[in-house]
């Protein structure tokens, strides 16, 4: 028995040597098949001037199998938990239009990529020919700002590498005449690569809700000639061709498919269905003919039944995503992302919260030294430098690749983060110089106004840096981080720190005002309000408790000691600032 067990255990570990299989696998002759498939899924020529590559997703053909996500993962060799494609659902709430639609999303390779504009080290490039937004993995410092900038939640942080990675449209496969992994893997050929015209005015992209910055409903989703479909009415009534659900052989049966340019079927041409392909034309070139790269884009501009990008998706006017979601049928009204009500607590970014508490406080002291040197105690200038040192040191812990951070000046032309880093760096040098000068201030040979100039320079540079700090977040266009919240919060910390030193009662009053401003975000049904009232209420309580200690401490004249509860409360507020933000994304899973 023992021998038998040992024998079977040994047998279990024995694998066939690949050599034996090599020959048989080699002559499988699969290459031609793949090539035929590829030629239906990618353009045959490179984009010309004013054009770029883009994903086209045929919503009618997508049945929600999600093979695209795993194929992308497997064929690109991604990390175990890393996915460059995501899937979600649109759900119909209108009882007259029972409807769900799976939505597959990768990078939209935007015409105006927010990630690229935000990157402080120019780790993003938009390929001048293909329009592919590529990420330079060895350039990335892992600051994750692109994650905050992208409204579609596309860049993903890899903790293994300490950098961000994302979809590159399988540019290597495209160059070799192969379709991207997701397109190759779709059983119903719902994903393909098309060439689109760029730089065109898209009125439907400019119709955004000014209050939120993101349009929640899509006015174009209600097509003029849409007909309600109910569970039984579609069956009972002889349906009109327009309301007929898709059929596999749509090329033959669909009224619109025969002539993609036809506008006669639709009373309002701007809502017509031209510019999309019939769902299954990709299956058989002999039936539909291979579409030329441009044939899907009528000269009048991008038009599809779903030309407003996608219902329940973030506003496309911001970054001009190029992915085209096309459908042969009008999408029903009242579509909601399946995760519309999901409360997603966002990352705390603790090192950033430390930095964004201590640096404003340091700047407050720095400004105090410059503006009212007679009122500032001797420790204020050196205190500013010390707090600044700790704050800047903390920020380094936020980076996945801090050793590459010396390149951070590269992006100064367009990245607020790059500007902030440079200005704070300069401020710190000035603040240290000022503190050193002040410590040596007893030296009569040092002209007093030199110290004053140093202090003034530090204050000016520091305030400019703090403006950049606030703009980093304002520039993400997230509602919770709007200017009327972010500026008062950041500058409020600076003012509170300065006032706590020279005018504690004023500081107490200012703190109450600032807390009132913060509490104003609790009202209403928006995500940030619900996050703070719900999963983050503990953190909110901590913030308020520290404020409740800070106010009497300030009034009691505890001097600098009042800074302790004050700054602890500001730190908690900054954590809330990060955790409660309404991060936009494409439609997701229900739970």
């Amino acid at each position, binding site marked *: 028995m023992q021998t038998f067990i040992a024998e079977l255990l040994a047998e279990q570990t024995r694998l066939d040597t690949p050599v034996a299989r*090599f020959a048989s696998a080699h002559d499988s002759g699969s290459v031609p098949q793949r090539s035929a498939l590829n030629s239906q899924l990618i353009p045959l020529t490179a984009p010309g001037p004013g054009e770029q590559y883009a994903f086209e997703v045929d919503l009618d053909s997508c049945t929600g199998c999600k093979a695209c996500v795993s194929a992308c993962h497997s064929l690109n060799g991604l990390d175990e938990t890393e996915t460059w494609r995501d899937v979600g659902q649109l759900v119909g709430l209108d009882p007259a239009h029972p409807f769900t639609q799976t939505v597959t999303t990768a990078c939209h390779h935007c015409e105006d990529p927010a990630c690229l504009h935000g990157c402080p080290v120019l780790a993003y490039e938009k390929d001048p020919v293909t329009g592919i937004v590529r990420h330079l993995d060895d350039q990335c410092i892992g600051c994750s700002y692109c994650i905050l900038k992208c409204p579609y939640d596309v860049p993903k942080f890899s903790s293994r590498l300490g950098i961000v990675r994302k979809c590159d449209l399988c540019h290597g496969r495209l160059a070799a005449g192969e379709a991207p992994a997701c397109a190759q893997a779709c059983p119903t050929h719902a994903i393909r690569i098309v060439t689109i015209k760029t730089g065109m005015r898209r009125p439907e992209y400019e119709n955004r809700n000014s209050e939120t910055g993101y349009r929640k409903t899509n006015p174009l989703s209600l097509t003029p000639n849409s007909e309600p479909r109910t569970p039984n009415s579609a069956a009972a009534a002889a349906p009109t061709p327009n309301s007929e659900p898709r059929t596999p052989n749509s090329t033959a049966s669909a009224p619109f498919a025969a002539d993609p340019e036809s506008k006669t079927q639709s009373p309002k041409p701007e809502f017509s269905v031209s510019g999309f392909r019939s769902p299954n034309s990709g299956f058989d070139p002999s039936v539909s003919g291979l579409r030329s790269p441009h044939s899907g884009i009528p000269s009048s501009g991008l038009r599809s039944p779903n030309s407003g990008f996608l219902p329940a998706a973030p506003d496309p006017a911001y970054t001009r995503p190029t992915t085209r979601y096309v459908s042969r049928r009008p999408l029903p009204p009242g579509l909601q992302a399946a995760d519309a009500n999901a409360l997603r607590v966002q990352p705390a970014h603790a090192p950033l919260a430390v930095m964004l508490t201590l640096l404003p406080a340091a700047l407050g002291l720095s400004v105090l030294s410059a503006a009212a040197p007679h009122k500032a105690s001797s420790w204020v200038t050196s205190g500013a430098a010390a707090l600044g040192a700790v704050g800047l040191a903390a920020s380094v812990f936020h980076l996945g690749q801090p050793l590459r951070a010396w390149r951070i000046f590269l992006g100064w032309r367009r990245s607020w983060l790059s500007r902030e880093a440079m200005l704070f760096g300069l401020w710190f040098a000035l603040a240290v110089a000022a503190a050193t000068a002040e410590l040596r201030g007893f030296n009569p040979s040092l002209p007093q106004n030199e110290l004053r100039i140093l202090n003034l320079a530090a204050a000016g540079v520091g305030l400019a840096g703090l403006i950049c700090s606030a703009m980093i977040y304002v520039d993400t266009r997230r509602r919770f981080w709007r200017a009327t919240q972010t500026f008062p919060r950041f500058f409020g910390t600076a003012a509170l720190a300065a006032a706590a030193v020279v005018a504690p009662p004023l500081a107490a009053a200012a703190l109450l005002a600032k807390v009132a401003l913060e509490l104003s975000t609790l009202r209403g049904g928006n995500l940030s309000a619900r996050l703070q009232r719900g999963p983050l209420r503990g953190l909110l309580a901590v913030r308020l408790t520290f404020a409740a200690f800070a106010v009497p401490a300030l009034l009691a004249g505890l001097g600098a000691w009042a800074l302790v509860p004050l700054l602890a409360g500001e730190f908690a507020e900054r954590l809330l600032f990060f955790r409660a933000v309404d991060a936009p994304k494409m439609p997701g899973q229900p739970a």
Partner: protein
Amino acid sequence: MSSALDQLLHARTGPMTSDLVQRPADFGLGQIPARLQPAATAKSVCGFCSTGCSLQVHLNAAGEAINLSPDPDHPVNLGMACPKGWEALTPLAAPDRATVPLLRNAATGQLEPANWSRALERFASEFKRIQRDHGAHAIAFLSTGQIVTEEMALLGALFKFGMGGLHCDSNTRQCMATSHVAYKQSFGFDAPPFTYADFEESDALVFIGANPCLAHPIMWQRVMRNRRAPEIVVVDPRRTETAQAATLHVALRPKSDLTFLYGLAHLLIARGAVKTDFVAAHTTGFDAFAAFVAEFTPDRVAAATDVPVATLHRLAAIIAERERVSFWWTMGVNQSHEATRTAQAIINLALLTGNLGRPGTGANSITGQCNAMGSRLFGNATSLLGGYDTATPAHRAHVAGLLGLDPALIPDRGGYAYDQILDAVDRGEIKGLWVIATNPAHSWINQSRAREILGKLDFLVVQDMYVTTETAALADLVLPAAGWGEKDGTLINSERRFGVVRKVARAPGQALADFSIFKLVAEAWGCGDRFREWSSPAAVFQILKRLSAGQPCDFTGIEDYAAIEAAGGIQWPWVENRSAETGDRKRSESLKSGFRTPVSGLTERRLFADGRFFHPDGRARFLFDPPRPVPEPTDDAFPFTLLTGRGSSAQWHTGSRTDKSAVLRKLAPTVQTVEIHPDDAAGLGLFSGQTVAIRSRRATVNAVAVVTATVQRRQLFMPLHFPEMNRLTFPAFDPHSRQPSYKACAVAVAPA
């Protein structure tokens, strides 16, 4: 110099860039990341669902699997796979794999590591003690549709012919028992007649209780390749993904399908759509059936099913007027209190309209598990190995002769079905249970009672890949099993196609292939001598060929595994010496044609082209019974009907494997959800994302609400992949197939 400066400032290359750089791979794989370049590939049929997709496993120089992609040359999947297939290797590396046998320490109550010889000794001594104290039939096993055919056959033979057991069943009782019984009674043998080419060849496809978009996405691929502009009819209470893709969705009242199908038969007969030649030549019982359905008038059917009379007429017209009509059903039919008659009502429609044996036709049951078909043929549970009848002495003698056994070793009657085994445990009649690769503590209907019953056993053995399944947690002995990808053998898919699975990874620790475990049990039991010829899966395949000879499932023409692989899988029947004479269409030609034309050669074959069925008289039977009311109707206290089913294509059953993949976990909800109609949600003050409590007479569970109009008013839908759902379900069973009726029970819902 400037390029060096440029690289310094702008690192376009480097180790992290190289991490993803691709280069062309061999084996027709296209561009593959350099670090994942395979040294060779091996083909293996997927081990999740019954579609039977071939996967091309990428191997390193040591022969270990490092990646996989779908096989572009296989006639089933044509280079595609669903996410489960793409992720098939990932669950093998899960940290909760069973790596050593575990024995429960009576003193501490904990499972503790043991070596194989002690585990086997304990297995044999406990089960023998139970047999001594409580009778030979006081032990039972519950097996699976997830292991290879050769293992199923060895297990069934070992248990019945070696260990003297009688009562055994498998989880295919939960999915395919109905189809098995329905086909057997109607056709004379459990023989799904179709081939996947029929999806492409139909003029009308009628899906009843089936959601292939989610459950069988690669079969749906074939529907989308249909170029005959077919009508696609979906009969389902929910507006599923498939219903949305249909040309006609019939949203009938839950569990009214039998009445609905009889109503269709009534209309077809009334409009003279009966193919009288076919019915006269190849069936019996039509006149009685016609008389029976006479009373299923459209008005009566409409009232009972909520399907408008006009829709009934429209569907009848589609079936009557289209040349090739195929009917497809899955769990919506099979899991019902009157499942067998419902499946047969579908078969009746195909029979009376002559939609059998021709391209694009058929009454076609889409199977669930990867080897449910293997279990149906060779599980040795309800029928004898190879589809023989256990109660017929001649059959027993024949099988005993083929196996070199004393016929007296073969039990002369069938054993209990799954539910009856659990009832017998409850009564104290069965004291020892061996559970192989299934998870009844999660998946069995009215789960709380199932767990309670499992607790009554003297000795529970769980043989599984994972120590963390709900059932393994209850075990007295856990035997660590190798999984798909760690062993060899064959699976049989929905269209009767044999496919080979290959060992491409090493099992962790001391985990062994189920085949090896069964061999060890035989030795430990002392009956190893009876199974000397069963030395390896390949050897057992030859035994099974012998058993199939002369049966409808005759596959004596398949030489060995290599022949199956070379042909891209082979469907039964494939009779010895026929391969040469039927070489009417070579595989390469059919590949080129894209299977647009029916093939009768090696690649694609359907049954009953000659109208000969497997009953002795060669005729198919019209079988029917009056519909019965749902076992647990709704009432004021429990006003909602709870529907259950597959939630996503990324999840497989109780998730013991699919939950182990981080990618698959991202593709579906991670908690139990419940879908509710917007009007009901508004009435109860519920919203999407809210946690709600679902209450049945058996339990109350929490779920996250998903408000959607795809469920009807007063209906809820819960996916089956989470343990909560089956605490609610009502234990009703089809009387013929003993399959549980998971699909409808009465519940109430309120905010949690």
